[in-house]
């Protein structure tokens, strides 16, 4: 319901005064946007529910799985690896001066590797996946919607969610941890290379500090978060593709919103999961050495 447009000319009927009118208008606009957000959230939830239902009742075909695993996972490896490596080196560049002033430059390994493994590796891998794969999925499915290919699947008795969404979801879910491990690994290598070979930090202490502060839990926690990132990217991108508006503009908008909404979801999930994982860590290792 478009309250905002109805009342933009003469204000709300029966509400006196310009301030009250503006206030009422503002409340109406906020209400309208809230309803739109709730409708969108409901639509995504129903879409995800239908996908989970197909995930349970029928296994996707082998060739659709392999095709999606290759295009979503394997072809994303180079860009994710390169991003990880450069971020590792950039972290070394940015942190070195401060640590050098405190004569703590050998602790750089701990800072770089902890940042990579807990935060930057997972978030960057997810962001690259949302950018490279999420937008492409939304554009591809959007084009299929606009050109009636999704309708064609339906009339041929193949459920489009089962045929198109489930394999993409599985590929994002299972391959994002692998992409994250690659980003982590390349970041660690990049950070080590720049710190030890360019900044001449002692390799022994660099590695020893890294090993002391970065544990298996950090690696597991960072990697586990990406399962949620991958699932949200797949659901959001496929939803945008399936609900694409007609025309080239509609497809473009679906691709853009797929990335923007996936990115917001990644950041929100990262915060929530970060708090939960930190609480779990605190319960498990109360006396463990912490950086802060």
């Amino acid at each position, binding site marked *: 319901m478009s309250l905002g447009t109805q009342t933009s000319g003469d204000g709300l009927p029966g509400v006196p005064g310009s301030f009250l009118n503006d206030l009422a208008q503002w409340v109406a606009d906020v209400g309208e946007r809230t309803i739109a957000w709730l409708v969108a959230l409901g639509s995504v939830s129903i879409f995800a529910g239908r996908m989970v239902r197909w995930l349970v009742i029928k296994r996707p075909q082998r060739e659709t799985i392999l095709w999606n695993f290759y295009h979503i996972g394997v072809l994303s490896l180079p860009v994710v690896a390169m991003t990880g490596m450069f971020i590792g080196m950039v972290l070394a560049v940015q942190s070195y001066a401060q640590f050098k002033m405190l004569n703590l430059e050998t602790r750089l390994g701990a800072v770089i590797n902890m940042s990579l493994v807990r935060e930057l590796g997972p978030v960057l891998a997810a962001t690259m996946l949302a950018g490279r794969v999420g937008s492409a999925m939304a554009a591809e499915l959007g*084009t*299929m919607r606009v*050109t*009636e*290919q999704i*309708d*064609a699947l*339906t*009339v*041929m*008795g*193949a*459920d489009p969610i089962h045929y198109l969404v489930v394999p993409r979801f599985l590929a994002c879910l299972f391959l994002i941890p692998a992409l994250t491990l690659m980003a982590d690994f390349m970041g660690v290598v990049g950070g080590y290379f720049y710190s030890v070979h360019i900044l001449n930090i002692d390799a022994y202490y660099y590695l020893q500090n890294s090993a002391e502060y970065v544990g298996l839990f950090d690696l597991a926690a960072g990697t586990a978060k990406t399962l949620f990132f991958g699932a949200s990217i797949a659901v959001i991108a496929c939803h945008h593709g399936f609900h694409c508006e007609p025309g080239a503009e509609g497809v473009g908008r679906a691709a853009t919103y797929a990335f923007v909404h996936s990115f917001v979801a990644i950041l929100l999930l990262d915060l929530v999961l970060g708090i939960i994982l930190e609480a779990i860590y605190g319960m498990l290792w109360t006396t463990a050495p912490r950086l802060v």
Partner: protein
Amino acid sequence: MAVSVAEATTKAASDDSPLLRIEGLHVRFGRQPVLRDINLGIRRGETVAILGESGCGKTVMLKTLAGLLRPTAGRVLFDGLNFQELSPSELARQRTRFGFVFQQAALFDSMTIGENIAFPLRQHTKMTPDQIHEVVTRRLAEVGLPEAVRMKKPGELSGGMRKRVGLARALALEPEVMLYDEPTTGLDPIMSDVINELMLRTRSAHSVTSIIVTHDMRTAVKVADRVVMLYPLARLGPGEGQILYDGPPRAIEETADNRVIQFVRGEAGERLMEMRRQQNISENTQGKADHG
């Protein structure tokens, strides 16, 4: 209470009821009604052309028949079955009894022509690759396409060839009902006649029931044995039915309804007057604005 599939099929086979029955069909998108109280029965083996100007709801009706759109009210019965009451797996099975030729063919871009035609066979049969290959060859020959197109992608074919591939794909599972959405739109007169001939051949070779949505009178006269003409709801008077004509194609010009005659002869009629009136209003508004 939902009628079971077996009961419904037995009942439909035992009496002479229409294969497809539309009862009190209403379809609306948001606040926009498109179809209002449509009642129609289509007998087995019949070829029905649904005529009407753009925006009158022809394609919406076809998609509702195929179960791609849900009726707002009323129901569509196919062989005694209401698609709204079937389980997803039963619905998928029943849909294989339909073949749908889309306006722009809706071929899958990512697949070759051969894979497109083989798609329904791979989804619904246990045929070996050799058997599928043989069926694809047969279907390509049936629509007059050379074997060489098998390995091409849809983007490499002309519009007429894509339509023929769409027809070959729709025929792959030997359906009982063929639904054609604007089969000759966008084609030159010669290719349009080729498609008309193919529809006639399909009818005689496979004994299918055909529903053709078109605004091409030549197609209706040549292929159909019954014509149903729809009229846009927005132009109807109060209480008027949306179906202006339902009868044999040869008798359509003898109808007393001027709106039907105008459509058959391709005359703009009062639309021209409406257009001139709109132009006058625009010019007057512009004139007042210039003087003001």
